[in-house]
């Protein structure tokens, strides 16, 4: 706690050097117009903004913030931010790379540039880049995180770092960062963190029970709202994975089918995970054909979800071999290695 206060104080000092600016903007989720004013304070969990210039600082909780733009930020940063929101990480990175004289910018703006650069690189690496490795991108993000514990991106950075550690198979290390997320003061973050933590725990068979508990916590939550509903859905999937892992394949299958039925068609990430979970459940139950079909859903329909696709390819390679379709097994392995060479799935397949 003390560390966090000091960090907040430091952030405040950094921000204060920008006194006198008028038009920083905080876009709040679910509100049409942005809050304009001068950002006076920043911590990992809130940002203070003086709307009126009278010194009255309004605290906006970080979980309500969609994005922040600074008055004196370069336009490239704004473009990058937009691209990130649209998932166009390569374009965002290009924009960020074009920002001249970053170190002359206001500190908080520099932090944003650093964060978004690290974030883009992380996302690109997670998608299976040949030029940016997950390890390197992870190191960059870690550097930001360690240096900016008072930044409003702090929790998000923890989450992405956790994701990257999961992507490289370092599930126990990922737990650390997800638990930071879980310590956030808001229920929706806690729920999301529990789901992520559950998944990381599930990947470590000795911690399966704990994983089950995490998912159940989310399922037992009474929080209302879209985000909460989405997390509960994700938790159901997690529970299904837990059931599959603990030899309750039929219940797992039934639960996954419910998730697929309830999930929005646009939620491709959840669908991809769902079909992988379904595949794993069938595989555990010895139903090879059903497992193949489930993983093929990911390969055919959701191959844009990199991590899920890698997992699906890994399983497909093994299952094709089991049904004597050697050529298909070889093809799956080749795609896995060429596209997701640095993923743990490729490592597991002997790449």
């Amino acid at each position, binding site marked *: 706690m003390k560390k966090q206060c000091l960090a907040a104080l430091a952030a405040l000092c950094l921000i204060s050097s920008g006194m006198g600016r008028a038009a920083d903007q905080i876009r709040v989720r679910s509100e049409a117009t942005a809050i304009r004013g001068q950002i006076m304070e920043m911590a990992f969990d809130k940002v203070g903004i003086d709307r009126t210039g009278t010194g009255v600082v309004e605290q906006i909780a970080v979980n309500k913030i969609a994005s922040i733009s600074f008055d004196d930020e370069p336009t490239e940063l704004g473009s990058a931010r937009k691209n990130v929101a649209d998932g166009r990480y390569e374009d965002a990175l290009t924009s960020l790379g074009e920002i001249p004289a970053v170190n002359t910018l206001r500190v908080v703006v520099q932090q944003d540039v650093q964060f978004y650069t690290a974030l883009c690189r992380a996302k690109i690496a997670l998608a299976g880049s040949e030029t940016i490795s997950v390890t390197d991108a992870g190191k960059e993000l870690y550097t930001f995180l360690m240096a900016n514990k008072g930044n409003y991106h702090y929790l998000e950075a923890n989450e992405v770092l956790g994701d990257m550690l999961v992507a490289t198979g370092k599930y126990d290390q990922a737990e650390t960062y997800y638990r930071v997320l879980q310590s956030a003061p808001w229920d929706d973050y806690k729920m999301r963190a529990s789901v992520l933590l559950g998944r990381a725990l599930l990947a470590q068979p000795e911690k399966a029970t704990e994983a089950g508990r995490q998912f159940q916590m989310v399922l037992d939550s009474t929080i209302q709202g879209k985000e909460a509903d989405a997390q509960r859905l994700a938790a159901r999937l997690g529970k299904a994975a837990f059931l599959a892992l603990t030899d309750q394949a039929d219940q797992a299958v039934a639960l996954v089918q419910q998730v697929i*039925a309830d999930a929005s068609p646009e939620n491709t990430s959840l669908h991809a995970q769902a079909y992988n979970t379904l595949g794993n459940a069938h595989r555990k139950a010895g139903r090879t054909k059903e497992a193949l*079909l489930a993983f093929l859903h990911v390969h055919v*329909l959701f191959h844009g979800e990199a991590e899920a696709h890698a997992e699906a390819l890994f399983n497909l390679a093994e299952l094709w071999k089991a049904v004597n379709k050697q050529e*298909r097994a070889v093809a799956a392995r080749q795609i896995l290695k060429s596209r997701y060479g640095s993923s743990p799935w490729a490592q597991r397949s002997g790449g």
Partner: protein
Amino acid sequence: MKVFKSLQVLIAGMVVMGTLGARPAEAVERASDFLDGLRKQGYFDMAIDYLEQMRTSPLAPPEFKKTIDYEAGITLVAESRTTRSATTREKCLDGAREHFKTFLTAQANHPLVPDANIQLANVHFEWGKISVAQANAPGKTAQEKKDLLDTARKLLEDAHKAFVAAEDLMHKKSNKFPKEIPDSDKKALEERGAARADWMRSQLLLAAAVYELSTTYEPGSTQHKEQVTKAAKTYGDVYKLFGSSRQGGLRARLMEGRCFKELGDTAKALEILTNLTTLLPDEPEVFRILKNQTLVQTLETLLLVKPKPKYAEAITLGTKWIKDARGAEESDIEGLQIHFLTGRAAYEFAKTLKDDDPKSQENRRAAKKDFAYVGRFDGKYQQEAKALELELAGVKDEERKEPKNFVDARDRGKQAWEKMRVADLQDKAEAAEGKTENHERLVKQKAEGLADAKKYYRMAMGFDTSDVLADDLNEVRYHLCYLYYLGGDLYEAAVTGEFVAKNYPETLGAAACGIIAMASYQTLYAGAPKNDRQFETDQVYRLAKYVADRWPARPQAADALIVLVNIAIQRNEYAQAMQYLAKIPEDSRRRAEAELKTGAACWKAYVDAYHLPEQQRPNQATLLEMRKTSRQLLEQGIGRSREEVKSTADVSNALAGCILYMVQIYSGSDEPEKAVEWMDDEKIGLLKLIADGHEATKAQAFRIQAYKVALRTYVAVGDIEKAKTSLDQLQELVSAGGDAEAAKTLTNILISLAQDLEQSLAELGTEGKQEEIKKLSAGFEMFLSEITKRSDDFQTMLWVATTFTGLGSGLSTGQTRQSAEAARYFSLAAEAYQEMIGRCEKDPNFAPAGALPALQMRMAGSHRQAGHFKEAMAVLRTALEEKERAIATQIAAAEVYQAWGKEKPDYYLFAIQGSPTYRQVWGWGKIAKVIGTRPEYRHIYHQARSNLAECRLQHALTLTGDQRTEKLEQAQRDVTAIQQLYPKLGKEESIPEDGKATGLEAFRRYESVLTKASELLKKK
């Protein structure tokens, strides 16, 4: 041709356009997207599994569930187009057909029904094309090719009918829209456009079916020309309706041009194609492709123009295109065709010029360049291009560098194979025309081709093949297998063939490999020592079984089953042979052959079984069953074969043999009229075959059998004139054979005929068919009378007498008093013997030396059987006066008295003691005493003693009271005494048996007498 590959596009287009909105919406499972994705990836098997899963999945949208069979059909059709395995392709189309039918039945009102009908028609269409391709594949016999083309025609006609129905439906749908639609009504305009597009596509499908039907006829034949003409008109109509405004119309125009090209009307074809070329733009790509296809047809047509092909024009067009070719299109299918045709035009043109003409050199160089280009790419023209390139380079086969990899070695092997095949075909064609001048050269060419093909295919297999597709490897193995077999390397052929058949059963040629392996072992079997063939037999059996079980629907299965039938027959496993036969489809061209073989084998087995000694002979019911089965099989087989016979030249030797068997079967049955039918049949009658000099009937043995059975048959039906003719022919045949003992031969033949007759009479007797017996006997009697009149030959007369005896035996009831008919025949026999004895007395040379006593014995026997005991004894007494110690005569005399005893009981005593009047007649008692106990005559001793006991018993039965008792006891003592003297009698001590089992008969007689006497004495 891509035009027909675009049939898929046509149909797919109709599915999308005609059924927009008919595909079910998906809320939960993206079933359609997933299915499409699986198909695109080539995961057709998973697509099918997925559809099956969707039948019961809670995630499947309800509307999607209704279309599962439709989607399964689409998937299987798509798979059929990607596989190289003929078996898999057929399986896919078969499965697709079933799914479409199921969908159409279960979802009769679904919006996809019109599409499903078209898809079903398309399955037949594809299948028809496959059958045509199979028919034209090398190695097919004329019959196989015909069968495949007939199948193809039927399938294409079915497809045609379905396309007609679809076209009608689309036409009606299209006509529902008003002629005038305002521009503002975009929706209606779009819908009308779609409907017209569907109608046009359906017309193109129809035209495609009409065209494909032409490929089922021999090119150049009347039917082929008629069909192509129809196709040209159909395509022309499509073009007239839709013109150049639609791609389909232009496609139809191209096909119309192609049809005229095939009809040889090059002027019309060029007019159409040239006009079409001007209409086709270079963009978008679909038109560009069509334009390239048009150019291909144009070039081909220019090279066909008669009397002088338009080489220059072809060269100009082709060269220009090549120069302007865009990127990858130069090496796609049309690009390679254009290169090749341009090269050919240049080469052919160069050949019309003098060698030293610079233009000749220029064109040769250009042609070589084109061929070199085409030779780099795998495809239809690759081999030919390579060969032409070498030809132009002046490189002889032996100067070519040896291959360095699998592909090159395989290609060299293919070229050599082609060389062998072409030489073989040409040699056969010329031989059929009676030409022989090229024969030696072609034989040499064939041998060279075979040797080279084997060399290069083996070489190919010796290279690194780790990245060679299994289908390509097996194609080489298949050729090698066949080459090994042709070259006599039978073990290699067997091993290679079996390897492919067992490890790659889905591959094209796998079944053929199995058959070649089997045939290899069959040849090895024929060459192995007769007592050392078990290994080969086992291999043949094993492979035949494998082929028959693995590919039950393929033609090779019938070949294998026939082998299994033969093996089963050899092993006398007739029931098994019948089972194998049953597996050969009724409509298989090998079915008739199998029935003939099995029927002939069954008949032979029956004849052999019938002539076995009594103890080994199967029982009567079994014999009748064998006879019935033989008849049935032969009738079926001959009936089927008859359909295909147009002249006796079409009758195989096997068939001719089976016809003879049929005549034999009916001749000896209660339906001899049917035997006459088989003899006189206008197509395959036995006598017709002989008259026409059929190959199988040239052998004397065959003709003898034929006339013999004809003689028998005509006798049986009472047609004496024809019987006489047959006899004349038989006599002439035997005499013409140059046989020094022709007369004896003929007599033997006639005697064997008499034995057959006796057999038939016996069978009829067993079956209780007295009327048939009388009829047969009556006819035969007339024949015998004729013989007697014609001949004074001792042997013939003896045969007549014997035959009368046989007739009597056939009618014999086994009772004391014969039937009147039987007695009459025995009397006739006696008369015949009397006649012969009279001749002997007149002419000492009439009969062989020492024949007279035998004749007397026979006459006596005939009298006895006729019940003329006095006459019989008179003969025997005379004989005994001359030679009292003739045991056989004494026995005959005792038998007469014994038989007489049934009418006059006192004669039993004469049988026992001899005649009180005629001292030379001994009776059984003295016979036994004279014979004594010498081991070599023991059977006669027991014959005498047992008959003596029998006579005593029979005599006792005619008495009453104490006299009876005394005689019974005496009979009992007679037997008991013998039993005490010979305690092992009937057990260990063997009693010699003659053909009539006299010894055993004696033993049974003892037992019978003792048993009967004892019973009667007990009752007392």
